[in-house]
């Protein structure tokens, strides 16, 4: 019996903005290749208008997400981890294609990514106890500090670590009640797109997570200038571009993380700690009379 040859189905992937999967407003796409240089798919190349739309969506969603109970946010993040687990095979496949990793290595990366989501899901309702608290003051009043979300964070995901790095960047931002516009790895966007599909079908409200595929160096300056973006995560940006973005960010008093680094310096498989959680919160301190 002879088998008929099949046409290969090459997908054109889209962006993820405000809970929907739009094409780039610019109509641009770019070609994605696997680790061996074979054509895999087309991905949308986000323009500054797409980025701006994503910021609008993130702003709209942020207060509702921050207003949800920390416990509820934790449940929703855990749900995302469950969904990644459910699509484990596809993620392993994507990571192998994107990073040219061996099967055991790809399995290890996906395991670590799931564990990372669970780690941050657990932190949502514990974080304020760790970084907030009652401050010792010499007077007849309480002095209490509590962390509040910074707002809308634009995150440039690591260029090398296509899934674990992306998860390590996005999860801490949303765990503390921020909304995020994430720009994925330019050369390795497929795991990001699959992650967007997971987020869209879990219980994360529309606009809390927005994922753009495209060039960080192109979108970056517009986001650094944007007055309605509260913070930047420059993990995946080259050092020279990062300097420019930090200078631009100063004009609108944005938080910038990390101050000086690139993802080559970061070991995403190591202990994540709480540094990324603490990077995107503002400490609010209130004074309250003790009373009699």
């Amino acid at each position, binding site marked *: 019996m002879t088998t008929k040859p099949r046409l290969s189905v090459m997908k054109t992937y889209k962006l993820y903005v405000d809970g929907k999967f739009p094409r780039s407003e610019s109509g641009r796409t770019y070609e994605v290749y696997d680790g061996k240089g074979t054509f895999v798919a087309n991905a949308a190349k986000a323009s500054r208008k797409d980025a*701006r739309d994503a*910021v609008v969506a993130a*702003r709209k969603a942020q207060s509702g997400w921050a207003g949800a109970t920390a416990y509820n946010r934790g449940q929703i993040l855990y749900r995302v981890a469950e969904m990644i687990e459910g699509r484990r095979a596809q993620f392993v496949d994507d990571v192998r294609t994107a990073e040219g990793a061996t099967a055991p290595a790809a399995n290890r990366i996906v395991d670590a990514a799931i564990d990372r989501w669970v780690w941050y899901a657990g932190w949502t309702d514990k974080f304020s106890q760790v970084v907030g608290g009652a401050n010792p003051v010499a007077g007849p009043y309480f002095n209490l500090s509590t962390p509040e979300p910074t707002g809308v964070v634009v995150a440039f995901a690591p260029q090398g670590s296509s899934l674990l790095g992306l998860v390590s960047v996005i999860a801490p931002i949303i765990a503390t009640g921020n909304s995020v516009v994430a720009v994925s790895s330019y050369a390795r966007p497929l795991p990001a797109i699959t992650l967007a599909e997971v987020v869209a079908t879990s219980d994360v409200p529309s606009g809390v997570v927005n994922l753009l595929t495209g060039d960080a160096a192109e979108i970056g300056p*517009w986001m650094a*200038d*944007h*007055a*309605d*973006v509260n913070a930047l995560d420059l993990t995946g940006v080259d050092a020279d571009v990062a300097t420019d973005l930090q200078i631009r960010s100063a*004009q*609108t008093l944005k938080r910038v993380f990390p101050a000086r680094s690139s993802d080559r310096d970061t070991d995403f498989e190591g202990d994540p700690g709480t540094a990324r959680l603490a990077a995107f919160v503002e400490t609010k301190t209130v004074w309250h009379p003790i009373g009699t």
Partner: protein
Amino acid sequence: MSTPTATTDPASAYADVVRDNASLRAFLYGLPGVDQVGADARAAALGGRSIKTDAKKWAVDTAISMIDLTTLEGADTPGKVRSLCAKALQPDPSDLTAPHTAAVCVYGDMVRYAVEALGDSGVGVAAVATAFPSGRASEAVKLADVKDAVDAGASEIDMVIDRGAYLSGRYLDVYDSIVKVKAACGSAHLKVIFETGELATYDNVRRVSWLAMIAGADFIKTSTGKIQPAATPPVTMIMLEAVRDWYAATGRHVGVKPAGGIRTTKDAMKYLVIVNEVAGEDWLDPALFRFGASSLLNDLLLQRQRMSTGRYSGPDYVTVD
């Protein structure tokens, strides 16, 4: 349509038309009908124009200068009116080149606070009167409402017509009430609100526009902002056609004010294109075209900041009210 010859006194030219309800009705029904599909298509086509940078800068400033900054809530306070006036005078404190708005629009009892806050700045004080927004009160009460606002210093009166009377065919009653309110206004400008969302057809919009202009309206206004749908591009276009035709017939300019539902710079620009294409350049002036809006101003300011600084702005950079 039987158009009287041009004259400086429209009232006498149309004296025959308003002799009784039957003749007024005959005149209004003699106006050409509106092709609804055609009107929608033309308004949509005009709204689809692309506005380029320099024209956009001009349009944003023109739109700001045409705004009647409005607060018409039951919860209004003197403090809120004062802060609105401060915003009308200086919409963007970080950029003093931003023009002031045309007027502040408030309820009658708030007029005195607005007059006090605005002084002789050139920003008008518009007051809604005649039992706004329903228009359901006796004539004596409506006229007292107008007089009250005028006495307090309002330079513009926004009256609502009795839609019930209009829809049941008592056109002369509507005419009479506008004439009486106009008389009560004294030197204040009269804007007549139709609430087009309740008038059902475009034909009615054209007829009521003529009715108001014959009765002496200085401005015709789409809506109270309390009923959906409020201002729409096709309805505004029909009203602009009416003022254009009225000008051709009588030589007298009447202004148009769309109100309610215009929130974005993009929307405002669509309206400006329609004004220019339908009525002409004369109407691209705050004296003859206004936007009844409160949230529109912030979006215009954000666009203005974006154009002057080169970076996208955010709602934290403008005041809430």
